[in-house]
């Protein structure tokens, strides 16, 4: 299968601090690819590089068989969408207006929409289940609703690749599943390539075709969830103990973190010391 993204020897540093150290990986067309790693492992930086936001990296990225740098912003916006982390700040644009913004890369300078743009926006609203919110404004929505609106905006771009930065982080259980299901449907029905950064290993294992474990800007492991989610890999990546079991639904691997009081050995990575007396 042809690759959607080919990253080779990616290096990136913020001043003296190295964030990515020679990272290479491929993402296939139509694949659901999830990147997992602890805070500070370089996940968000990687996403910004792939989205064309951060261009101060070394190495090479090819998107759909073309070097990433060869795209203009507009060309890139027609092929690739980003669903950012949920921001607290929200301007009172209506949901309908926000979705039409997703059509911006297909419209003229003033963003005057055509019948076709409106049709695509309405389809995207139905697909993500936000049709009833059309006239509400962003600041009136809950976190879960807003996240679905941003998903719908990404769908409006009609991209070949969608990048998501921890899309389920601030959501309740029902909304988490809903967002993941929507992405899986986009993958299966439209053949969209999904690349997601996530903290939720169990959720990732149930949806991803392949996982990549990232630690300190380097790859720990890459492959199907059954091969990647092992207690050795998780301990190497996160430095904490987990039990790995099997999810009764579909046999996906499932982890259970181990609280400190169940750990016997002295090499416990948690910090020691006594709490002050009250």
């Amino acid at each position: 299968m042809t690759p959607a993204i080919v990253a080779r020897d990616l290096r990136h540093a913020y001043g003296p601090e190295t964030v990515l150290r020679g990272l290479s990986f491929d993402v296939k067309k139509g694949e659901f690819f999830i990147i997992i790693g602890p805070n500070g492992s370089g996940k968000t930086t990687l996403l910004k590089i792939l989205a064309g936001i951060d261009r101060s990296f070394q190495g090479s990225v090819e998107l759909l068989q073309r070097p990433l740098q060869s795209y203009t912003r507009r060309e890139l916006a027609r092929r690739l969408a980003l669903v950012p982390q949920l921001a607290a700040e929200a301007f009172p644009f209506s949901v309908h207006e926000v979705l039409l913004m997703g059509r911006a890369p297909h419209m003229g300078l003033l963003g005057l929409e055509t019948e076709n743009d409106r049709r695509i926006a309405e389809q995207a609203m139905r697909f993500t289940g936000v049709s009833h919110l059309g006239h509400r404004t962003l600041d009136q929505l809950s976190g879960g609703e807003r996240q679905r609106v941003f998903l719908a905006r990404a769908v409006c771009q009609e991209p070949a690749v969608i990048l998501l930065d921890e899309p389920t982080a601030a959501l309740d259980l029902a909304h988490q599943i809903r967002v993941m299901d929507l992405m899986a449907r986009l993958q299966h029905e439209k053949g969209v390539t999904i690349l997601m950064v996530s903290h939720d290993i169990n959720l990732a294992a149930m949806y991803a075709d392949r996982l990549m474990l990232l630690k300190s800007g380097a790859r720990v492991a890459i492959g199907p969830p059954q091969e990647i989610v092992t207690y050795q890999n998780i301990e190497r990546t996160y430095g904490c103990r987990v039990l790995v079991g099997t999810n009764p639904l579909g046999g996906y691997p499932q982890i259970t973190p181990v609280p400190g009081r169940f750990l016997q050995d002295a090499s416990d990575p948690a910090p020691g010391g006594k709490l002050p007396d009250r």
Partner: protein
Amino acid sequence: MSPRPVLRRLALVSLPLLLALLTTIFLGLGFGVTGSGLRAIWEALLALDVSNVVQQTIVWRIRLPRVLLAAEVGATLSLGGLVFQALLRNPLAEPYILGISGGSAVGAISGILLGLPRFPGVSATAFAGSMATLALVLMLSSGRQILKKDTLLLAGVMVNAFCSAMILFLISLTQDSRLHNIIFWLMGDLSLSDMGQVQLLALLLAPCFILVFLLSHAMNLLLMGKETAMVLGVNIKAVTLTLLVATSFMISATVAQCGLLGFVGLVIPHLLRLMLGPDHRILVPACILGGATYMVGCDLLARIVPRHGELPVGVITAMIGAPLFIFLLRRSGK
């Protein structure tokens, strides 16, 4: 294709505002210290009474340039405030926030102290002062990561603070009648204008207005966040720089003409945003028309309210604008 909702809204908003502006201009021409009344203005406009040369002169040579200048200044300051509020994503942003006021004031005061004539001498030094501060602020804030909004804001505040000190220093050295000129410039003054200056200003402003309108959809996208705008295809570096330079240029041009007129640029964009929503494709024309209407109206009041002489127009803009804004803010919060 069915009519686009944005264009329909644009027409629905712009036409009443245009009507309001024309009415206010008409009133502005009709009323003043001498020869007031709607009849007089009709007669002057239609040249019914050709023998009444005095009236003709008052309306055409004195009031018309002043009213048109007020319209230009009000439009520019409101639009400038709107752009800076969007670019800096800061509700307190106003046209003078990047140091334009301080820089142009130092320039103007220097010109006055050198004994230059009001036009073109003092206008030129004021304009040079504001352009110099813009260059300085851009230089200060464009380090590794170009045009970070908080750096831009802080650089502007610092430049303004330094200029304020310079202004006080220059004023403390001045004792003769030039002091009066300085104070008038700092309070803003629409009275010293002729049609030539009004036309020159219009020539300078029109391209800036058009440029800002063309970038109004990009401003909408910018409000969704810098990264989102980039991913939606906006070349934010080019858009930000263009808006910044065009806006600073047009504000400097008006400041050079009539000094510092505060508050309009802060309150009109907020007022219109509260009433019309955040879409800049609507707000840009609305700020131009609404700001012009507001300034012409305030100038009219400043001319006719006192029995003798006139009030500084800046007094009126804030006295009416602040309570109006608080009223709308409270209503929108409910």
